[in-house]
């Protein structure tokens, strides 16, 4: 029988996981899409080709929706550390709070300051300045990712601190060691590539969808559609294999610093050399066994140590109260890896079609690309579950337990707010998804939205920002 404080802790964790899980999608979307928009505008300025401007105007509408959802869901996060994890914030705030403040000052303000110019300012500032604004927003998203991953990585592999014996607080000693902690570079690269890959597959699916629609109408897809599809497939071809390499490196880093996380991801109980890789199995935390295991001999050692007889850790080497729940991350890890492989496969497939000139004429491939639309985001969420559930039962790894980090909030309050969060998030972000799909369901046009007041009704129906719709002034205004 669980006590009320136990349940309150469980709800606090679930609430945090739910709100951050919804949130993480939008910044990842913004990181990828802002970079794509910067590339499109840069190409337009360089080549003068209308198609790049059309695509810029098409995708910036989606960007404005995604970005605003990221802002509002992110605001929740900046207060939830204190509302749900007050003991953690009091002890680790001198480190993680400072990193968050740097994120606000170097990234959030930069993004917010130039977002207005980016969305509404194309006929108010010159082309060069507008491009600079787009770049500032894009760079802002990348800086933001850097700080938050530095903070998250510090919690996973803490360095550069001492613990105050009187208060149990983490005192910063060496800020460079705190920021550039051992897992930070790996996590940063892995997450950045994940964001790019996720957006590439959304853009690719949008292009593929409109090619299928054009084909059904008996027409050739327009140039913007073909260009976006081609660009997205180039990204898949190049980034997906890089991501596999980055993931492998991140895994080796985890093996070194959080071996029990690896053991739980792999469902391994005994430490052994020449270890098999489990393709399937059901890890049981009570009986300390993985049932129904489907094994590939030697592959486990090969993947984790890059040698056939390398030693791979097992969960039995670690005390029971320090093991993360293997059944969750065993599967989340496998789903992530499978989707990663699938994305790389699509990339290679597109390359092969491209060589034979069939990239725009293969409806089967286009159908696959449409189905792959959420692949990147699902993989990203599974990866996040793997790393966050895998570091349990700790908030600061090996030093501060999750159960000792929680706020003194009563169960009834937690239950009320949990319900409210779920209801509001389903309404708001569900509507956001519907709006986004409707937006992307309309094909980009040649001369996308050269609106005049006479077309006001049309403009409203398809949502055009005046700056983007308006005439483009000369250089250097």
């Amino acid at each position: 029988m669980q006590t009320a404080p136990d349940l309150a802790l469980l709800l606090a964790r679930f609430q945090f996981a739910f709100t951050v899980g919804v949130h993480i999608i939008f910044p990842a979307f913004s990181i990828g899409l802002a970079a794509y928009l910067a590339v499109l505008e840069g190409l337009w300025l360089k080549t003068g080709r209308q198609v790049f401007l059309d695509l810029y105007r098409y995708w910036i509408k989606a960007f404005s929706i995604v970005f605003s959802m990221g802002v509002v869901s992110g605001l929740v996060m900046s207060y939830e550390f204190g509302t749900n994890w007050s003991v953690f914030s009091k002890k680790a705030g001198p480190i993680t709070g400072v990193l968050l403040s740097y994120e606000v000052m170097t990234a959030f303000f930069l993004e917010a300051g130039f977002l207005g110019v980016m969305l509404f300012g194309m006929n108010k500032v010159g082309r060069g300045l507008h491009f600079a604004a787009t770049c500032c927003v894009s760079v802002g998203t990348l800086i933001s990712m850097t700080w938050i991953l530095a903070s998250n990585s510090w919690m996973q592999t803490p360095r550069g601190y001492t613990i105050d014996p009187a208060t149990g607080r983490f005192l910063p000693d060496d800020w460079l060691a705190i920021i550039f902690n051992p897992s930070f570079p790996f996590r940063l690269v892995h997450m950045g590539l994940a964001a790019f890959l996720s957006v590439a597959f959304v853009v690719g699916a949008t292009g593929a969808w409109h090619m299928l629609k054009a084909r059904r109408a008996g027409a050739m897809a327009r140039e913007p559609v073909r260009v976006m599809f081609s660009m997205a497939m180039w990204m898949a071809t190049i980034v997906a294999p890089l991501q596999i390499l980055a993931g492998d490196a991140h895994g080796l880093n985890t093996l070194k610093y959080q071996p029990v996380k690896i053991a739980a991801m792999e469902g391994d109980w005994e430490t052994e050399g020449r270890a098999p890789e489990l393709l399937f199995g059901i890890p049981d935390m009570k009986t300390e066994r993985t049932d129904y295991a489907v094994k590939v001999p030697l592959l486990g050692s090969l993947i984790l140590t890059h040698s056939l007889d390398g030693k791979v850790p097992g969960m039995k080497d670690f005390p029971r109260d320090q093991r993360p729940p293997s059944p969750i991350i065993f599967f989340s890890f496998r789903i992530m890896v499978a989707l990663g492989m699938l994305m790389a496969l699509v990339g290679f497939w597109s390359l092969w079609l491209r060589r034979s000139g069939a990239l725009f004429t293969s409806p089967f491939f286009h159908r696959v690309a449409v189905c792959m639309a959420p692949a990147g985001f699902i993989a990203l969420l599974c990866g996040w579950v793997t790393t966050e559930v895998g570091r349990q039962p700790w908030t600061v790894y090996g030093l501060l337990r999750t159960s000792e980090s929680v706020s003194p909030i009563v169960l009834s309050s937690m239950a009320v707010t949990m319900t409210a969060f779920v209801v509001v998030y389903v309404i708001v972000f569900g509507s956001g998804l519907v709006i986004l799909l409707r937006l992307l369901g309309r094909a980009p046009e040649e001369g996308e939205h050269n609106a005049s007041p006479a077309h006001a009704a049309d403009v409203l129906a398809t949502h055009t920002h005046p700056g983007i719709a308006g005439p483009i002034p000369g250089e250097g205004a």
Partner: protein
Amino acid sequence: MMDFAHWLPIVWAVILVAAITIYVILDGFDLGIGMLFALERDQGRRDVMVNTIAPVWDGNETWMVLGGAVLYGVFPGAYATLLPALYLPIVLMLLALIFRGVSFEFRIMTRGTAREALWEVGFMAGSGIAAFSQGVILGGVIQGIAVTNGEFTGGALDWLTPFSVLCGLAVMCGYALLGATWLVWRTTGVLEASCRKWAVWLAIGLFAGIVAVSLWTPLLHAPYLRRWTDWPNILFVAPVPVLVAVLGALLAMGLRRGHSRVPFLCALGWFFLCLSGLGITVWPYAVPPSLTLWDVSSPPSSQFFQLVGTAILLPIILTYTIYSYRVFRGKVTEADGYH
């Protein structure tokens, strides 16, 4: 080192109050415009109202994120007691801000569909509830938090008192006044005329709110009262109520004589004075009535590292924020286009 540990929290308290003031003023008129949707039913004019803030609201809200982050990094002891104590109004505020924030885009995107009304109401109610919760949170802090051994030990509904509700209503009224005077400055014609009318009533309401809160606050805790009545403090604090009255007179005059910018600046002045007054009252407590700034602050090494960055970054942020406002300066009319 002793000196360092003494002065850093004071410097940070000033920065934090400045950030909160900037937030209250900037997002204040955004939220006020949302509430004024209740009085303005015409869709074209509503669009103009939103268009005056659409390019800047996100930057305005970022000051609130900064406030949270500074509290977290510099005063973690306050962050860790205030937030659990004010858990319910804070969650209410966050949820309201979610509705408000997405409605900027969603109300246009769903135009002509059955869900259009949801986001028109979402913008209005989200703004109103966010404003009310912020007032309640402010009142909750001023009236004090039950703390033992540096941890919140009160009940889940401690914050809910007549005083905090009064603060909530006063902040709603104040934000609506900021919104109305902002629109007097930034719009023309029928909308500007309506806003002048509304602003008069809102100013009267806010003035009543200021008087009520000012008379009530010193009665909450003895040190609050002494701060305002002891000699020689009274010399320094006496100008505050006088200035409030002077600005009120200027505001009324500006509205009647057709000034476009004076009413907004007077409303800003009121907010500045109110927040200063509350700062004077509560000083040196971060979590009244028990924890001072020094009790809740992070180690000097954290505060110093963050101060270096802030000293460099804050002027840069202010520069490009002002630039962004300048790009979109001038009166906004219905002919200007659609967002």
